[in-house]
């Protein structure tokens, strides 16, 4: 139950981060299943900026393979949770 709550909160944080970095996408249009590569017309530089914020904010050390497979908000959350699990 606690894990679910953590995940939901983390998802909201990532969505907030995504919306604040990209700037032109309304908050309501973003859900955990949003594919930020295909669902919106976002330039490479903005996506890189968002992913770098995730990396720095959550102190992640993703491998290039981890980076390459992430396309949705849920996958970003999975990556953060996986790294947190490793650290604990």
């Amino acid at each position, binding site marked *: 139950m606690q894990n679910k709550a953590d995940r939901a909160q983390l998802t909201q944080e990532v969505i907030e981060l995504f919306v604040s970095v990209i700037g032109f996408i309304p908050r309501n249009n973003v859900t955990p299943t949003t594919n930020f590569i295909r669902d919106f017309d976002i330039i490479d530089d903005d996506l890189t900026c968002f992913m*770098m914020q995730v990396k720095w904010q959550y102190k992640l050390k993703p491998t*290039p393979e981890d980076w*390459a497979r992430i396309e949705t908000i849920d996958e970003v959350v999975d990556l953060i949770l996986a790294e947190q699990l490793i650290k604990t």
Partner: protein
Amino acid sequence: MQEKELSDAVFSTVHELQRDGVNLGPSSLVAFNLRSSMMTSCPGTLILPSQSWTTGAIAHEVINGVRTNSSLPETTFETLWECTKEHYALTATSAITASAGIPINKTAVGAWVHAGSSRTTNLASLIGMRFFPRTLIRHPTAARMAKATFGTIRVFGVIGRGIPFVAAGLAVFDLVSIGLCAYEARNAKQS
């Protein structure tokens, strides 16, 4: 010198020459040739007795001046170098702008790279990502224009995307500026 109408001046001169034994032919023909020559763009005209005037031939030749082609002045290496030094002392921003636009490998700086995305970024974008990730264009019209033109409304996103073009523009400006400087320096030396 007394001012005369062209036909009168030609008439009197032709007859004066005739008295001295030089026959240019009918004064009306001489006047016609002079007028024709004046209507062209040549800078000056000479009416001379034909080469066979010594044998009593009645004729004249029209000699038209020719404009020389003004070719571009030769700009020596020293002149160009002096101008380049002078120019870059004044516009150091050109160099800064150009260096901000140099492509940087994303993997080398640990940035996110996805299949199909660009493998490079630039210094301006990296600075924006690190220090100003949420600095957005707030003005609605400017934001719309930025989105339509650059695909982003992040200030550093716009700078990052626009800077190679600005650098290219500055490079062209630099070349023109240096060229003009060298041209002026060369002309000043000649005059």
